[in-house]
């Protein structure tokens, strides 16, 4: 019981420590997006509704959209999620991967999940947030 309590506290601390992305190496993240992540993101009618004001705000919303499934779109391409996580882990001190335990569950759901077209709205928003991040 004590053991599980410690695990819970550590995860909570991890969440708090990486929630603001203020100490990230933004230049390194820009280069990763330019050379790696942008290749996973394409849209034709790139309407977007999500805004962000500064670079930490943009990264917060990017991370949430990429790694946390929403109703109507169970998950995005696995490569996109893993590359985004790797970038954040590399460039943001205190950022830890959160999706290892859910990876197996996501793979199982992927067989039943919607196609990428149904997640296009999320992809459009992600593209908008990333481009806004690049302009800041």
């Amino acid at each position, binding site marked *: 019981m004590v053991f599980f309590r410690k695990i819970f506290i550590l995860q909570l601390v991890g969440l708090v420590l990486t929630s603001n992305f203020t100490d990230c190496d933004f230049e390194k993240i820009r280069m990763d*997006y*330019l050379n790696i992540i*942008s290749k996973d993101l394409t849209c034709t009618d*790139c*309407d*977007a*509704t999500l*805004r962000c004001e500064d670079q930490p705000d943009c990264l917060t919303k990017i991370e949430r959209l990429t790694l946390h499934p929403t109703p109507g779109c169970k998950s995005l391409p696995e490569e996109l999620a893993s590359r985004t996580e790797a970038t954040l882990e590399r460039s943001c001190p205190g950022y830890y991967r959160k999706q290892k335990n859910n990876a197996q569950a996501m793979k199982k759901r992927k067989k039943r999940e919607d196609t990428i077209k149904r997640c296009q709205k999320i992809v459009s928003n992600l*593209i*908008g947030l990333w*481009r*806004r991040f*690049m*302009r*800041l």
Partner: protein
Amino acid sequence: MTRALPPWAPAAVFLLAHLIGAGGAFEHQIINFNFETVQVTWDASPPSGTNLTFLYGFKEKNDSECPNYLLQNGRRVGCLLVAEGDTILNFSVWNGTQCLKNRSLWISDYLKPSSPRGLRVLWREEAVTVTCPDLPWKGLLYEVQYKSSFDGEWQPKAESTCNVTIQDLDAEKCYSFRARVTAMKSSYGSTTYPSDWSEVIHQQRGQPRDSCQEERVFSKSVLIYGLAALLLLLLLVLCVWKLQRVKRLLMPSVPDPKATFAGLFESHHGNFQEWIKDTQNLTHLQKVEDREPEDVLMEGLEVQPSKVEAETPVTTMAGPPGLQTVEKETSGTPSQLPGRPPQGEEVLALGGFRFTMSDNSYVML
């Protein structure tokens, strides 16, 4: 076995077509002018001819009507908005109560940057640096194009700031420079527009010039003038040659007696009397075959007796063309028969004519 269509099928088809028309048939264009103004224009023309209504809002709002409609032939064809920075624009276009289009987008996706101003060109040996004030946004590309007066095409060079250095240029040549701004795809997407080109700057040897076309014009004009001068020279030479012929035609030159009287100058030092004595048997002038017809011997033959002799009437005889003889006959002996030379005087036969010569007479050619 055929199935009958349900009664609501036609209505469903109608509604579906309506929805598809609302979502996809409305053509429009969006331009974000340097994050200062946003222009939305449309091509749709409702059959009824009514004006469309444009509602918009930046960030989350979407309930303000367009403050500045663009009109064409009295009908609304667009809306001009004042931008509120790098943000999201929500807008919808209505034909009465029917929504023709509803969109939410980043206005940066349709950026058209302003044209670079204050372009400066700095020469440093064989390199040129073109500078201008940067725009206050990241993710832009500053493209400089240059060409010399001898190049046909513009050569491009781009950097992420408006500080572009071009190497290996010849300072002696006149170069033209211009610049524009484009948005990088990674930061703005692929639906942006390049800025208009800046004013063209011309420079040679580090000094500004009004135009580089003068150099080409100058070399062309030199060529043209050179050819014209050469042509004039040729014409002049031709005219001079023609004039010489005309001159010879109108004013034949005085023939050199050397050719006519062989030996006159060589043997007798121009003393015609002596020459005549030696060649007394000649009764006519030898014709020189290579003499031109106009080279006629113009001779003046003058025979003057001495003054102590009595005056006698002067007789002028017309000789062959060009040969004039003025002779004063002395009184002589009245008993002399006409046609017979007086005593003590010689007879000179020349060109078919006979002249009586005394000791006091001389012949002048």
